């Protein structure tokens, strides 16, 4: 057997087994997407209720609360970047990191320091490779985030926010994550978490519906104290869930096209292998004929 044919056979075999892996990963991703999307919508009632309450308190009461008031000068900003733990998800993590780079550049140009928090091994690898600093990293379970992680993230970010600048505190907090718009559209997005910009349009309150004049128990300050950390947690959790759904959707799409490419390659190599085999047969035949002719002549 010719060496060329053997090489093609090996290529076909390895591409076939890779194709099987791609297919399996595509199936796993698509089976998980449904659950991830269900979790996004399951977190919505909580997020809506909490947004509504925060909007009501922030827009009515004249309470001065550190979380709602804009500091005079912003000297350091925290950036939380949500990426994936694993690759094979197309440009998912790269898109988020690119967006984060833009944000960091923008913040630097405004003369602010940046303190980075990372989620996902991909972000960690990106920063480690470039020798950049980051304050903290969380890895594991980016495709199925749990509320505990969101709570921990929220707690640490709020602690930093409460710190003075000199002690390493931050004056604003941004989150970079991938917004899950639909199965085919996921968009890297930046939101500013703190200081709070309560966007009324985000809650499902019709604009003409008046927010009731609430009574507070105990005092408005304490209610805000209890409410705002939960609001932050719920925003972070929602971002994590959307990121997880986006990751799975991106992975499914990437694996689908990888599988398709593998199929194309197999076809191409099969053709080449047949060609080589045929060439060998033809060559052998003409050698035999030539040999017979030489003997007869």
């Amino acid at each position, binding site marked *: 057997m010719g060496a060329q044919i053997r090489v093609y056979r090996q290529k076909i075999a390895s591409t076939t087994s890779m194709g099987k892996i791609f297919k399996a990963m595509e199936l796993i991703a698509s089976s998980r997407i449904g659950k991830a999307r269900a*979790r996004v919508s*399951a*977190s919505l*009632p*909580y997020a809506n*209720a*909490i947004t*509504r*309450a925060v909007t*009501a*308190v922030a827009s009515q009461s004249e309470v001065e609360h550190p979380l709602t008031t804009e500091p005079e000068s912003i000297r350091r900003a925290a950036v939380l970047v949500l990426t994936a733990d694993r690759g094979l998800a197309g440009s998912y993590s790269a898109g988020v990191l690119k967006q984060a780079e833009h944000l960091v550049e923008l913040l630097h140009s405004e003369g602010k320091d940046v303190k980075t928090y990372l989620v996902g091994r991909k972000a960690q690898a990106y920063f480690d490779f470039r020798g950049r600093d980051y304050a903290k990293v969380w890895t594991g379970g980016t495709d199925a985030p749990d*509320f505990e992680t969101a709570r921990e993230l929220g707690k640490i970010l709020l602690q930093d926010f409460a710190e003075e600048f000199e002690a390493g505190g931050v004056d604003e907090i941004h989150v970079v994550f991938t917004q899950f718009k639909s199965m085919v559209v996921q968009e890297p997005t930046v939101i500013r978490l703190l200081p709070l910009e309560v966007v009324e349009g985000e809650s499902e309150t019709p604009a003409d519906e008046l927010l*009731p*004049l*609430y*009574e*507070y*128990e*105990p005092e408005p300050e*304490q*209610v805000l104290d*209890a*409410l705002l950390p*939960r609001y932050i*947690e*719920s925003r972070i*959790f929602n971002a994590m869930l959307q990121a997880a759904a986006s990751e799975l959707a991106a992975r499914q799409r990437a694996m689908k096209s990888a599988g398709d490419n593998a199929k194309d390659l197999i076809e191409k190599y099969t053709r080449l292998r047949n060609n080589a085999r045929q060439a060998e047969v033809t060559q052998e035949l003409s050698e035999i004929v030539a040999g017979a002719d030489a003997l007869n002549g």
Partner: protein
Amino acid sequence: MAELQVEIVAADHFVWSGAAKLVKGRTSNGEIGILPGHVPMLAVLAAGDLEIDPVSGSRFSVQVDGGFFSVDTDRVVIVADNAVMAESAAAGTR
């Protein structure tokens, strides 16, 4: 008689919603009972049991770790950090 529209949500899932005659909870200041027509309020919940007396079905309780609740025009939204339904709560779930 008017009734309360109650909605209980936890951080990562929906717990219960339905019509109720009475909601009893514990705030950081003490116990509070909410009947239809209650003044709008926003309060911080302490850890403990919530009691809900639904229009149809029997009274049940939900254990919460903390959270807050809001009341406005007979709509009660309870936002709990972690809510566990006590038994016999399935009745009235929709």
